[in-house]
């Protein structure tokens, strides 16, 4: 796409409604032509309604985001900004910012209201209607956020409730019900973590035309240089594919993740028959007669929409969104120890509870700091201290993890991320009080939630702890793993004086276990595969295979299965029932295919 096309596209996002009574203009912040130091955050669209811009400066003000918009008419406009104070309390809001319109800074300081909603900025005077410059001016460097700016000659505030807001947005943007453009593939893979990448490569190598839809600019999910968890587990039969995608065993959060990022992105992009849709986030999937007809996705900055149709779909979104939207059965939380016989007496309730509950493993936000040559200032963060308390650290590894039974890892992910940001900034602030840390500076803090567990879609087989302990070699075993089963819990459960954002791991070491193909397709949605943490398993069953070489194996296994589905025009379950020997042979062959020099 040329630069001028991009500009046109961006301008196309500025939606005007001209009516007899009023002049209105909605500007989506994520569509700003130049986001400056602000980042586009699309993680919580399903909850708060839209991608948004965030000033993630780790305590240093970020560069202004700028754009130009055109009004139908000059005049005075009531102006609102949709924003949120992400750590409200008896202190100044951490993420404050201002709005500059047509060269004039509006007086109102924004980012101060509890919960997402509209803050009234005041009257903006627009002398010339065309190419009016807008700027978001960060005041703190601490994650101020702006979803949208609304100008109206009418003083009526836009709707607040998520449902009404969604309808209002559609009206303002004159959006049709569905995307206008439809693209058709052999296989649509949603989610570009290791599982989704491996599924795409495996299917593409077998000649399928694949769409890989991913809501970030970089592939890899938790392994990406944006989250930086190293990959664990073994390669199984898929060393050739997974070596194109995995990471070295550097400490979690290490900058070397960027080297593996380049390798991964280049490798996936090298396949001509993978159409890569980076920065596209799926927002709907429609099934008829238990068969998915399409997935709809939206570009996270421009808002452009596309419909993807295919005979087969892979849900590697992690949160199981495609399954959720299409009506697939799923589970969330911990089963009772008796449900699948998952008791481990040594760890009792921490491992598997007597009575089921909705506790799950938590999400991590990794971070680190570095020594500089001269003393470094770090601002006061009173809003972080109720979370961090007196905890003092200069970096965070996997133990920085948060889960609580009143929070859903899906619906409350923004609160979870924000809780971790408070933990990080507060703990670093405490560490900075030590003379030995005078020269320390925050080097990198992720703003993406690194999830471990969320929805688990239900397949023909639910993989459990027992399957692993008994090392059952299923007839359709397609994934093999030797790494320990590793289930986390929050240490605050054992001692209320512990920080609530630190976890502990319980390890069960076996020799080797297998995952059957039947855990990789949906029980009730006929053409849906799943790979990654949303595969079919129990809470404890997830403890082992949630690591990324294992999820990568799942992806590859699913990609090869899809190729046979296409060959015989059958559904995923039919591969198990009628084509298993051929499928297993195909997977076995993978062991012996060399990695081409160009893909190393």
């Amino acid at each position, binding site marked *: 796409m040329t630069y001028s096309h991009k500009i046109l596209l961006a301008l196309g996002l500025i939606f005007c409604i001209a009516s007899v009574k009023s002049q209105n203009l909605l500007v989506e912040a994520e569509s700003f032509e130049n986001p400056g130091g602000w980042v586009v955050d699309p993680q919580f669209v399903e909850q708060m309604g839209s991608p948004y811009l965030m000033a993630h400066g780790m305590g240093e003000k970020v560069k202004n985001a700028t754009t130009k918009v055109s009004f139908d008419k000059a005049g005075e406009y009531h102006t609102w900004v949709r924003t949120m104070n992400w750590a409200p309390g008896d202190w100044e809001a951490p993420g404050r910012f201002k709005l500059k319109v047509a060269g004039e800074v509006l007086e109102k300081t924004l980012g101060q209201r509890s*919960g997402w909603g509209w803050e009234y900025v005041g009257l903006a005077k627009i002398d010339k209607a065309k190419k009016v410059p807008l700027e978001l001016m960060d005041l703190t460097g601490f994650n101020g956020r702006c979803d949208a700016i609304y100008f109206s000659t009418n003083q009526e505030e836009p709707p607040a409730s998520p449902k009404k807001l969604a309808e209002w947005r559609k009206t303002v943007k004159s959006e049709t019900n569905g995307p206008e453009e439809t693209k058709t593939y052999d296989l649509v893979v949603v989610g570009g973590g290791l599982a989704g990448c491996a599924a795409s490569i495996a299917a593409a190598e077998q000649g399928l035309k694949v769409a890989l839809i991913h809501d970030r600019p970089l592939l890899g999910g938790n392994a990406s240089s944006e989250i930086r968890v190293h990959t664990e587990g073994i390669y199984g039969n898929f060393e050739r594919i997974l070596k194109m995608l995995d990471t070295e065993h550097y400490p979690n959060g290490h900058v070397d993740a960027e080297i593996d990022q380049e390798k991964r992105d280049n490798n996936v992009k090298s396949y001509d028959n993978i159409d890569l849709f980076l920065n596209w986030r799926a927002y709907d999937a429609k099934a008829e007669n238990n068969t998915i007809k399409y997935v709809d996705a939206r570009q996270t900055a421009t808002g452009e929409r596309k419909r993807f149709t295919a005979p087969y779909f892979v849900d590697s979104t992690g949160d199981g969104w495609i399954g959720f939207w299409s009506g697939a059965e799923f589970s969330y939380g911990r089963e009772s120890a008796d449900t699948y016989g998952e008791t481990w007496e040594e760890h009792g309730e921490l491992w598997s509870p007597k009575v089921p509950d909705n506790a799950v493993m938590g999400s991590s936000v990794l971070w680190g700091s570095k020594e500089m040559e001269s003393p470094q200032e770090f601002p006061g963060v009173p809003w972080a201290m109720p979370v961090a308390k007196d905890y003092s650290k200069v970096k965070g590894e996997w133990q920085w993890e948060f889960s609580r*039974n009143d929070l859903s890892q899906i619906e409350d992910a923004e609160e979870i991320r924000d809780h971790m940001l408070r933990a990080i900034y507060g703990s670093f602030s405490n560490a900075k009080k030590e003379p030995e840390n005078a020269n320390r500076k925050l080097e990198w803090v992720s703003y993406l939630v690194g999830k471990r567990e969320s929805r688990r879609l239900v397949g023909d087989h639910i993989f459990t702890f027992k399957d692993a302990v008994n090392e059952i070699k299923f007839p359709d075993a397609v994934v093999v793993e030797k790494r320990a089963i590793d289930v986390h819990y929050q240490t605050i459960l054992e001692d209320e004086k512990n920080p609530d954002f630190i976890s502990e791991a319980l390890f069960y070491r076996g020799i080797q276990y297998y995952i059957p193909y039947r855990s990789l397709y949906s029980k009730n949605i006929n053409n849906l595969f799943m790979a990654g943490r949303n595969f079919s398993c129990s809470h404890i069953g997830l403890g082992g295979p949630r690591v990324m070489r294992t999820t990568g194996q799942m992806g590859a296994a699913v990609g090869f299965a899809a190729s046979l589905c296409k060959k015989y025009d059958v559904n995923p379950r039919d591969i198990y029932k009628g084509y298993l020997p051929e499928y297993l042979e195909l997977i076995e062959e993978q062991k012996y295919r060399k990695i081409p020099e160009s893909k190393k």
Partner: protein
Amino acid sequence: MKLVKAFLFMLVVCMGHAQFPLPVPTLNGVQEGIMNRPPEFFTMGWEKGLQLGTRETGMFIEVDSIGQQNIALLVDREQHPVLYTSEIETPVCADGECKLMHIRLYWTLLGDYAGFDRYPQQPLTKHDHDEFVQADYLKLHLLLLDDKSIFRQRKIEELVKKPSPSDHGDVDALSGATIAEVKESVVSGALYSCYVAWHLVHGEIAGKLKEHTLGLLDKELILRMLHNEDPDYQMFALEKLAKEEYIDHLERIATIFKSSIPLVRSYIIKNLPEEFWNIRANQIPFWDAFSNIDINSRSLLLEHLEEAPESSIVEVSNKLGSMTKNQLRLFLDFLAERNNEPEILENLKVFANKGNEICAYLVLQFLEDYKQ
């Protein structure tokens, strides 16, 4: 919690005794010893006047080249089991040089680490032959308290950085530096001693001790554990009691609910029998603790709003500030479906109009929509 208790205990010990005397004679010899004071490093409570005698168990720990180290059960005057103990003598070897480590270990009745005594005449030593100082013993104690230490997962060879051959020739790997991951938690210069001690405490013997206790288990011992302050004992007792027996011990269970750790609290709420929830008066002490308990337990309690006594609902409506956003939503959803007493609505109004309550807007929205 154990770590904190241990630390406080050690502060007292450090202030009171420069050298703590050996509390009992050796067990491997004549077993006439009476123990009337807690081990020097100890995690459990010690009742005033408690006096422990020893009873043989027939169990032992096998130590390379030394042989069997017997394990005794320590019992009080009424012959109730209290602790397990063993006098350990074991070689600790590094770089081909071995020294004897002499230490007396204690376990709880569940096979968890309870503490240790050192022998002033036979102090523990480090790799460079320096003797442990008091702070080193305390560090060892804190390490032994961590039953999920990285030591469980790793071989000793994995805990040291191998020196590069070009720097050190063919030096034994053990003389390499301790890896950063464990450095903070082990006694400096005594990785091997720490590793050996940890595996003695948390090795196979832990499970065998618990098994031994199961053989002694009767209702009296279960109730003694229920009335103990140790959360592991409380949890064990709660697991062993039949659900219907909870009603017989409700007073104690309510006390534990207020004072114990979140894990135990949550277990209690999840396992209280239906019979308990059917009698509203039973619930009052639990709802009274609402604003003082941890968030997870509070969420579980809120699942029982339908069965709660009205007085507790009123009380909870006066504690909205202690709820998380989602808890408050759940509570308001509950109120939305019923006719509420004026006192409840008044409490909501007061909360909604407080300037500094983060979630006041939720209550405000509720009051706008709510029609009596």
